[in-house]
């Protein structure tokens, strides 16, 4: 257990009163953000990122991670009570959570989700603690060519798996990479794509991009939904607890969901959505009463909720150990690290173990806080759903614009955010996934540096990117991730019955 001494030191950081407070604040805000329909972890982190400036980096990152896993639980309440998932990872919960609510078992659905999230979250944080050092040791052997190929693989996987269309995913990731080339070239000092705007010399401000694409675009969509008269909540009824029979039925799905969520979460591009779908399909396949799924089966809530929470820690494995985010939300978290002057990766684990392990250990604490917070307070939290949408929209708009402005007191950055909101609106309308774009933006500079270093080492020979076994394996993974959606499409057309599993 190589990581044990680091873990113990990490608890010294995580249990500091200030950091405990930020774990609590992050988990609380995350739960609230998750409950608010449509916002989700990515927009929530983007929205609150500017308010963390001025804090110690470790406290700020602990809070942002708290928002991440807090929101993964909070999304459940909106799914169960108003049939509207807080974000994509809660979509599956709707299938059985909402019917449970209609059957008067909303309290049981929310309780099993809280306990399931706690158990699975703890399983996955233990797995993260065990795997962090071996992953980082492998990553230390990577040179520019391996790093470049790893980024290519991550982007291809995220493009292929975060939307229905590979071409749209690729469009999104390359659009992000293009945005990342704006600014002064680090090697030659040459200005590129700045169009004479001094604000762009340091690159396009990250916060303008994420706030524009997530928070402001969300406001525009909330306006549409407001006119359409959507989002009508139903009241909680019945006891806020499960029966012994419901607990017995939930133990297996929670354990399996925890393992599935962590393993899938590690894979780039897969993330919470695929983890929840896989968990749901597994439970339906294993159930003696598959016909009950979709009509309020508690297994259909317990498994996916556990998988969802567990995938959060899985997602953090490549981010913390390799410096490579595997999803939109971890890409935003990477942006936050970079804004604090911290580059996650194997070097960080060696140079600042207190920060990395403090962050990991804060998740153990955060899981306990979430459980303590959610079980007694869920009745109170769901009242947030009754907050008038007009006030909610105005609040998001004002906090988003204030956040962007307050970082550098730059009105140009506000205009940029508004511009990105318009682009984001059309992205969403055209069903183009935004996660690959954010990944392109945060990895763009690293990718160009790795490409140029590799080409310099080889004297301009691009075959360096296929010169080592690791590069070849990553190239094979890239090809697989690009071809898999097409193969899956052909497979599902030949076997239409496979679709009925979900």
């Amino acid at each position: 257990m190589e990581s044990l001494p680091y873990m113990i030191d990490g608890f010294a950081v995580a249990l500091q009163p200030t950091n405990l407070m930020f774990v609590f604040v992050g988990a609380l805000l995350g739960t609230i953000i998750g409950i608010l329909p449509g916002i989700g972890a990515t927009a929530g982190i983007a929205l609150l990122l500017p308010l963390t400036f001025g804090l110690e980096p470790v406290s700020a990152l602990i809070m942002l991670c708290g928002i991440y896993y807090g929101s993964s639980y909070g999304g459940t309440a909106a799914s169960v009570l108003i049939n509207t998932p807080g974000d994509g990872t809660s979509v599956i919960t709707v299938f059985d959570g909402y019917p449970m609510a209609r059957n008067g078992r909303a309290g049981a659905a929310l309780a099993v989700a809280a306990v399931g999230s706690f158990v699975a979250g703890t399983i996955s944080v233990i797995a993260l603690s065990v795997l962090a050092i071996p992953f980082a040791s492998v990553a230390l052997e990577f040179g520019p060519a391996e790093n470049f190929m790893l980024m290519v693989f991550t982007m291809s996987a995220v493009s292929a798996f975060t939307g229905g269309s590979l071409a749209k995913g690729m469009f999104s990731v390359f659009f992000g990479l293009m945005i990342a080339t704006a600014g002064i070239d680090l090697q030659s000092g040459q200005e590129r794509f700045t169009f004479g705007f001094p604000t762009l010399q340091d690159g396009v401000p990250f916060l303008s991009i994420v706030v524009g694409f997530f928070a402001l675009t969300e406001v525009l969509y909330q306006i549409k939904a407001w006119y359409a008269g959507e989002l009508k909540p139903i009241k909680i009824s019945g006891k806020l607890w499960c029966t012994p029979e419901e607990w017995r039925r939930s133990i297996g799905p929670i354990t399996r969901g925890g393992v599935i969520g962590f393993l899938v979460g590690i894979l780039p591009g897969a993330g919470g959505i695929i983890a929840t779908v896989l968990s749901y399909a597994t439970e339906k396949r294993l159930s003696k009463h598959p016909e009950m799924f979709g009509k309020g089966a508690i297994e259909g809530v317990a498994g996916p909720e556990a998988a969802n929470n567990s995938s959060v820690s899985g997602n953090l494995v490549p981010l913390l150990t390799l410096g490579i985010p595997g999803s939109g939300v971890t890409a935003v978290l990477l942006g936050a690290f970079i804004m604090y002057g911290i580059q996650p990766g194997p070097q960080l684990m060696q140079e600042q173990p207190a920060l990395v392990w403090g962050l990991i250990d804060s998740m153990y604490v955060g899981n306990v806080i979430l459980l303590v917070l959610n079980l007694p307070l869920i009745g109170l939290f769901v009242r947030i759903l009754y907050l008038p949408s007009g006030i909610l929209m105005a609040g998001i708009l004002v906090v988003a614009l204030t956040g962007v402005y307050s970082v550098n007191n730059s009105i140009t950055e506000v205009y940029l955010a508004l511009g990105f909101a318009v682009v984001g609106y059309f992205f969403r309308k055209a069903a183009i996934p935004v996660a690959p774009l954010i990944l392109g933006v945060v990895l763009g500079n690293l990718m160009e540096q790795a490409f140029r270093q590799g080409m310099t080492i080889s004297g301009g020979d691009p075959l360096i990117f296929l010169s080592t076994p690791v590069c070849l394996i990553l190239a094979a993974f890239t090809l697989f991730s690009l071809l898999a959606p097409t193969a899956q499409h052909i497979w599902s057309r030949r076997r239409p019955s496979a679709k009925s599993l979900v």
Partner: protein
Amino acid sequence: MGRSIAIAAFLIGSSYLAIAYNIPTRAAEDPVGPRMYPMLLGGAMLLISMMLWMEAQRAVPVAAAPVDPLLQRRQRLGIFGAAAAAVAYALTLESVGYLLTTFLLMLGVTSAFHRGKLATNLAVSLGTATFLYVGLKRFLGVPLPSGILSFLG
């Protein structure tokens, strides 16, 4: 929609490529220089535009859900209105000041989407603007513009 995205991707790729082509390079630079990587991205975007076009050609036309033209018009008006309010906010933030513009933006949006509750909207708008102003300026030291209310400090 699919073809429009393909055309947009083509226009983005070709404009980007044209700008990248004009990035000056020097002989003594690394084998790649500041131009090659953006040119590769631009070229890739052109290929992606072709993929998008082919995908749009192959797409099976789906019968569009019936739309209510009146609802659509109201949604567009609402979105344009909110966007115009946000632009007006950005235009006046520094001259008029944070507190007043934030209060007005909040009041405008709540009045439009939380109708018939003027007292609540006024209280929420004033409370939010004041909370953010005091919190950011006094506690976090963010220099927010005071504008015409500079006498408040």
